[in-house]
């Protein structure tokens, strides 16, 4: 009887063992994870740079007819990015910019996902800026700051704090979305799992393992963001 249970357990464990241990396969996951992490990190950085720039432009030119074309450019960018599938954007940006086949895959991924993320971050930050009381801008200006100084020292710190949960959410979404990076020949975590599955004649188990990696990553990140938010909340007591 006992042997029967034991064989059931080994039947369950063996595929995971095969998909993880032999030929240092765990290293493939870890390498893939490292690629995913780097792409996500640089993409969110690029996304925040693009997002802040666009948000500030949109808020600034909102009532100035002279620079309306700037706002139009921003709106077109946001509309296209938010209105088309991510995977298509990846393929288009990749083939448009990175035609040389030996380009750094991290750079490729980060730029593609960064451009995509920028559109969402822009709208989040714009909301954050608009949530800051208009008296703050007036107070800054009345002290002699010019518009951009007031934005930088007074408005943005408050806006960022207000939207931090949303930005954190965007980062989590981004990390998971990088799983489609395989279509532009980036060997990220998902790609690593698929490759192992192909070698091992067992597609499903490596995917479970990859999913577990993503889950742990996202849980850890959620925890980290929570701590960070609490830090920033000083002054709210």
């Amino acid at each position, binding site marked *: 009887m006992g042997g029967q249970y034991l064989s059931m357990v080994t039947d369950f464990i063996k595929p995971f063992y095969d998909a993880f241990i032999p030929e240092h396969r765990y290293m493939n996951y870890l390498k893939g994870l490292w690629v995913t992490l780097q792409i996500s990190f640089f993409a969110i950085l690029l996304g925040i740079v693009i997002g802040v720039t666009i948000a500030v432009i949109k808020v600034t030119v909102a009532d100035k007819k002279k620079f309306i074309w700037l706002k139009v450019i921003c709106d077109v960018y946001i509309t296209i990015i938010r209105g088309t599938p991510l995977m298509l954007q990846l393929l288009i940006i990749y083939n448009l910019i990175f035609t040389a086949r030996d380009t750094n895959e991290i750079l490729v991924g980060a730029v593609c996902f960064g451009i995509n993320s920028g559109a969402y971050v822009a709208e989040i930050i714009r909301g954050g800026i608009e949530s800051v009381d208009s008296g*703050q801008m007036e*107070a*800054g*200006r*009345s*002290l*002699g700051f010019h518009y951009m*100084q007031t934005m930088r020292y007074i408005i943005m710190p408050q806006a960022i704090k207000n939207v931090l949960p949303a930005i954190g959410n965007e980062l989590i979404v981004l990390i998971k979305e990088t799983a489609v990076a395989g279509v532009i020949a980036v060997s990220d975590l998902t790609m690593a799992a698929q490759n192992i599955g192909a070698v091992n004649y067992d597609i499903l188990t490596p995917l479970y393992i990859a999913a577990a990696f993503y889950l742990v990553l996202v849980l850890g990140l959620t925890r980290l963001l929570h701590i960070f938010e609490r830090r920033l909340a000083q*002054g709210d*007591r």
Partner: protein
Amino acid sequence: MIVSNNLRKSYGKHEVLKGISEKIEKGEKVVIIGPSGSGKSTFLRCLNLLEIPTSGQILFKGEDIADPKNNINKIRQKVGMVFQHFNLFPHLTIKENITIAPVKLGILTKEEADKKAIELLRRIGLEDKAEAYPKQLSGGQKQRIAIIRALAMNPEVLLFDEPTSALDPEMVGEVLELMKELAEDGMTMVVVTHEMGFAREVANRVLFIDEGIVKEQNTPDEFFTNPQNPRLKEFLSKVL
């Protein structure tokens, strides 16, 4: 020090200021009263260009402040403003609220600004709040901080936009007291307020603005004891 020439301001079709020509001398304390919606706050906010006049001129020490040739930011450094809702910066400590403008604008070094902030805080008896955040303060304390934040820039004139209107009654006194001290020190002040006692006691001149024009102005004594304009008589009978 500040001259307005035929100042007009419209929002769409609605004309809020219908031609105000006034002159505020150095050292003068001008109190502006009037019913809500009369344009008194708009007039005050035009004086440092927080509102852009539709037509007319504002001269600060002879310079047209709306002229793009003149740097409005430099002028604003000399024209302090205190708001009804304090508008302290919630993400900064009290000391940082006071020092951020002089430091970032390169007027004082960090050390000089810190020293000045502590001096100013000591003056109003709040030096123990230097590291606190605005949310931890009472309304009266916030407004007094807002006033010394403006003072840290060494302004030549201070504009007050209903500085006590958002305060609980028991906190009005401490703010008015500080304003009186500033007045005694010779600060040029333009104050929009509903505090008639303050107007009587501190003002050199009281303006009554109604329907976008100055309907009457006089020394406080004459203004309150012998009003001429019927709208002013009606207004005073309601508020006094």
